[in-house]
């Protein structure tokens, strides 16, 4: 009962923090339109013909840009709370709808990358830790150092050349709806997810190695040995669970880089995700879309971080009741 209340309080507290963060982010996002140079109205009007001042004023009022900033802010925020992110200046389409379409695809890419990274990184890290100081360790550790040093776009280019252009095993780009053709959906996921996950795999492997080494030096491991527990059980049941706490943290910390990586990976593999949307919107100055997608990415990021912290709390009972 007490434990349950503790967990609940922990979750509520984290949730409150996340929501506060989101609110501030939303405010920052709103101000993007005012901070950034380049007049959206001119962009909207001026491709071939050159707009008259009256036309510009008319467009301004149509977009609500002639209102006082505070009024605009309040109405924008009210809309956001109701999940209404407004309409694209250029296309007129609902930003919320488009973000809702693109978000799952970025999320899928990111999650696939994390899964791949964990599947590679954790075993490699454990293997290096258990073979500490041997040639195996040196080889694996060197590989992970190389892994975190190779830029995403170089890796992506290499993978496309090898697996798409030379071997022809996997498609180089694009997205397929899972409902339309599930196997093709996953075939198209492989390369971008691997490209995105590779650096993370290296980070996870490094973190797993060092935290395994640290845990294996802890007193309770010796106590477990003194109980007569087998090494295998010590490692898989006790050491790994303890070591996973900093590893989960590193995954959380690396999410920023991972989400950042999607900007490059989505462009390279023509993956129709949020980053693609954002990059396009930035270059076309479609402010509502920029605001909407930045907000969505930040929200995604904040809530994944929240999830990480909650997992962290589950893994480590000490966190739940830490005194502040």
């Amino acid at each position, binding site marked *: 009962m007490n434990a349950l209340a503790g967990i609940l309080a922990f979750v509520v507290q984290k949730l409150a923090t996340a929501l506060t963060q989101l609110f501030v982010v939303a405010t920052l996002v709103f101000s993007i339109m005012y901070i950034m140079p380049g007049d959206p109205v001119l962009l909207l009007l001026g491709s071939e013909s050159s707009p008259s001042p009256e036309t510009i004023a008319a467009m301004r009022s149509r977009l609500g840009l002639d209102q006082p900033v505070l009024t605009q802010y309040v109405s924008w925020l009210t809309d956001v709370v109701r999940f209404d992110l407004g309409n694209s200046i250029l296309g007129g389409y609902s930003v919320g709808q488009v973000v809702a379409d693109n978000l799952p695809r970025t999320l899928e890419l990111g999650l696939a990358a994390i899964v791949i990274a964990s599947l590679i990184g954790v075993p490699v890290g454990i293997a290096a830790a258990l073979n500490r100081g041997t040639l195996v360790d040196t080889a694996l550790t060197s590989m992970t150092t190389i892994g975190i040093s190779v830029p995403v776009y170089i890796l992506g280019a290499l993978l496309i050349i090898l697996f798409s252009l030379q071997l022809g095993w996997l498609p180089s780009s694009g997205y397929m709806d899972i409902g339309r053709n599930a196997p093709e959906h996953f075939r198209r996921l492989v390369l971008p997810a691997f490209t995105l996950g590779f650096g993370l795999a290296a980070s996870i492997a490094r973190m797993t190695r060092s935290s395994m080494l640290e845990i294996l030096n802890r*007193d*309770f491991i010796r106590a*477990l040995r*003194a*109980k007569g527990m087998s090494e295998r059980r010590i490692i898989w049941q006790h050491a790994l669970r303890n070591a996973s*706490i900093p590893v989960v943290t590193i995954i959380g910390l690396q999410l920023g880089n991972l989400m950042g990586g999607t900007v490059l990976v989505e462009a390279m593999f023509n993956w129709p995700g949020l980053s693609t949307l954002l990059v396009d919107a930035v270059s076309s100055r479609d402010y509502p879309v920029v605001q909407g997608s930045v907000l969505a990415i930040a929200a995604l990021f904040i809530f994944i971080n929240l999830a990480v912290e909650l997992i962290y709390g589950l*893994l480590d009972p000490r966190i739940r009741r830490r005194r*502040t």
Partner: protein
Amino acid sequence: MLSVEGLSIGFQSQDGVVPTVQNVSFNLSAGEVLGLVGESGSGKTLTSLGVIGLLPPNASVTAGRVVFEGVDLLSLNQAEMRKLRGRRISMIFQDPVASLDPVFTCGDQIIEAIQLHEKIGRGEAYRRAVALLEREHVKDPARVMRSYPHELSGGQCQRIMIAMAVASRPQLIIADEPTTALDVTVQRQVLDILERLNEEVGAAILLITHDLGVVYEIADRVIVMNGGRLLEEATRDEIFRRPQHDYTKALLDAMPALGKRRDRLPVIERGGATDAPRAMASAAPPAPREPGPPILEVRDLSKTFLIKSGMLAQTQRYQAVDNVSLSIARHTTLGLVGESGCGKTSLSRLIMRLTEPDSGQILFNGTDIAQLSERRLFPVRRNIAMVFQNPFGSLNPRLSVQEAISAPMQIHGGVADRPRRVADLLDAVGLPRNAGQKYPHEFSGGQRQRIAIARALALNPSLVICDEAVSALDVSVQAQVLNLLKDLQAEFALTYLFISHDLSVVEHISDTIAVMRAGRIVETGPADAIFAAPQEEYTRILLAAVPRIGIEREDRQERLQ
């Protein structure tokens, strides 16, 4: 039953194998309690790890045999050894909280330990675990089983460790400093449990400790180790009545013991030790100065901390210091004793104004400094100095000793020839003058504490607050530092507020005593009076819990009651 023959253990290093334990032999028969005594670095823990086969990877047995029930353990492979561990030989470690896996509940860990060696169901194992805890008089075993290690106290964790160790009725229990991390009253309880288990289960116990008092309490026989060698082996009575080896004698002498106040503690001489001649046992104590009027008076001092376990959790009030009043006469020492969490450190921080008090007065030389602004407080600070517990933590690792000692002079100014003053101070605390150019990590714990003392004395303060200043030190080093403190008190006309959990030490150094519990002073008075005839129940319990050489526990309790 256990016979260790000529055991030698060495550490692998770049320069080859460094022998650390050399040619240690001893026997242990069934049901016997053998105390293995030594200071840090004596090789006692390594010896025990060698027995159970859990040496760190860079250490290895270089010679000898460990025969357990007729089998040489060193000849067994890992799998065979594993079958013995936990079932026939189990081990209890110094730090019970760190020795439990933090992410599993205690219940899971006990059950796991039971199931490791016996093929029984989880329900059965659970009942067995609860039974074990009940036998140790653990209150509310079901709740303890549900708890994670960090939610329990050190004493409770140690009981869980013991429950696991005795779960499969081992023939031998190796207990490595099982009570060192615990408060004295808890230590009492744990020792009781060990003793009773020894009787009930019939297991032999190899008790490794630096604390002669603990050994005296429960050991049948004692072996003494120093520098990796076994120096002496004898029955308990023999070793305490007629110690043969000089080291043993010195060790016994150097230990402040309740009821045996001496002006100075003899120190242990070691070959090539850098400790200075001043601290030699033979040096004559300077005459103590006459007590004067109170230099420090604390009146009704209170401090409440607000603790919030979560954003929405209820804020809890924690009364760390509750209406405390005390007074220290000039040139005397007030000993403040209490168990961990009693508020004694909070009190010292309040007096130093490192924490802001809620209410009350702190009269220093008659001036209330409790509410002074930091600016107004500044000139007062040069007259109050502090020596902290942890000799490794209280010196900034990035500053040389010279810089560290001159820090107060830099802050307050007023000393013309700082290098000279530093040299004088180094002399005073018995450190070589070239120590000034070195950095703290180049010194041992005792030496660092001397540096900290030198720093405290830099501006000729009138009051020095020593917060557990000798608690982290070995017995012999502790003796040196205590002597030094006494000498300096006489030489520089110092007044001490001496805070410690160790009653023997406090008794040794103090003129007056204040006993603290749960934020309050429960009893205060002259040291002799309090130790001879404690008025309060708590003081009595505290005193009864301290192991005392030469007095059997039962006698002690009777006498106090």
